[in-house]
């Protein structure tokens, strides 16, 4: 999973422009596995599976694999269509320093939603 994130985000010039002040790593959790996503000036620099406890990020967004798969489907069901809808339903959890997330919330939502499948 997440293999397309770097290509898709970095090819989206409007998204990169909106995120041009973002320079940080965050964790994206799928089931019990975390990925370290590193952003540099709005571009996805690297996406790597977390191997060490010391590999971490400012904040974490975690959900079950099935939840992300539905979130990334071409037309997600209600409650799965947006991270801010997944939270009140208990389908996702966020932790850590939320300030950079809140300062760039639509950007991060769109970076994660870049994994949405385009096949109808």
């Amino acid at each position, binding site marked *: 999973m997440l293999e397309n994130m770097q290509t898709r985000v970095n090819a989206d010039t409007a998204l990169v422009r909106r995120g041009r002040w973002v320079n940080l790593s965050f964790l994206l959790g799928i089931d019990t596995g975390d990925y370290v996503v590193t952003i540099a000036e709005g571009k996805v620099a690297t996406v790597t599976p977390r191997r060490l406890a010391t590999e971490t990020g400012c904040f974490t967004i975690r959900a079950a694999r099935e939840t992300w798969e539905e979130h990334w489907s071409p037309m*997600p069901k*209600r409650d799965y*269509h947006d991270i*801010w809808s997944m939270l009140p*339903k208990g389908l996702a959890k966020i932790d850590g320093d939320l300030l950079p997330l809140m*300062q760039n919330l*639509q950007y991060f939502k769109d970076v994660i939603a870049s994994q949405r499948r385009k096949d109808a």
Partner: protein
Amino acid sequence: MPEFEPITGRYFTMEVGGKACRIYVEEAGSGIPLVCLHTAGSDARQYRHLLCDKAITDHYRVIAFDLPWHGKSNPPPGFREDEYKLTTDLYKETVMAFCEAYELVDPVVMGCSMGGRVVLHLALEQADYFKGVIALEGSDKLEAYYDLDWLHRPDVHGGEIASAFVSAQVAPQSPDEYRWETLWHYMQGGPGIFKGDLFFYWHDGDFDDRSPLIDTEKCPVYLLSGEYDSSCTPERTEATAARIKGSQATVMEGIGHFPMSENPDLFRSFILPVLDKIRDA
């Protein structure tokens, strides 16, 4: 000359909470007065499609105003000294002051989100005055799910965060043009206004203990909520309808929290039958 839309916009001043408030209002059409109340943190531009819909304005005088502190309505003089916080009493007083200033007779009131909540209060307390109420995305109770302080602090852009929070409330099926127009209204809200409105919507306006007292014989209640609404969910709408005997609830598939502005074409297929029913009653 350009081809003008049929909307007329005007300003007037009315007293609310003992203070003079300069109000901006738009209207179109003639017939039964239909007062439209916008969502928390937004303004009456949300109703522009209804105001331009001949199938509605042939029978209804559609009137949509910006609440004080919203859109082109001013905050009251001295606002710098106060933290904006919408209470149930202030909201009801504002709507009634508007209707009285306009000398409306037998109006229908339609509100969305927090507007959908306040119309339920009005259905109980002003049943003799209103011909009917329409609650869009309106339930009698909600549960808060995020910390409102994020909406008003100097290190987070208020407009961007308001928009990013509520973008979850737009259905994925809604056309991009209207999705972003709806969110643009949120980006333009004054500092702390969305937060102040949510004090009513999430905390002060709970009404489930009294909503069963509404007499729908005197004042019909219509509830319409979008499938993708994460706050006034279809389940909360149905629970509200179960408490208000005689109310009529509709879940609008493929719509979110902003039916009239996020997907106006689809919304009219749901609202026209309701307006026809009220007209024929």
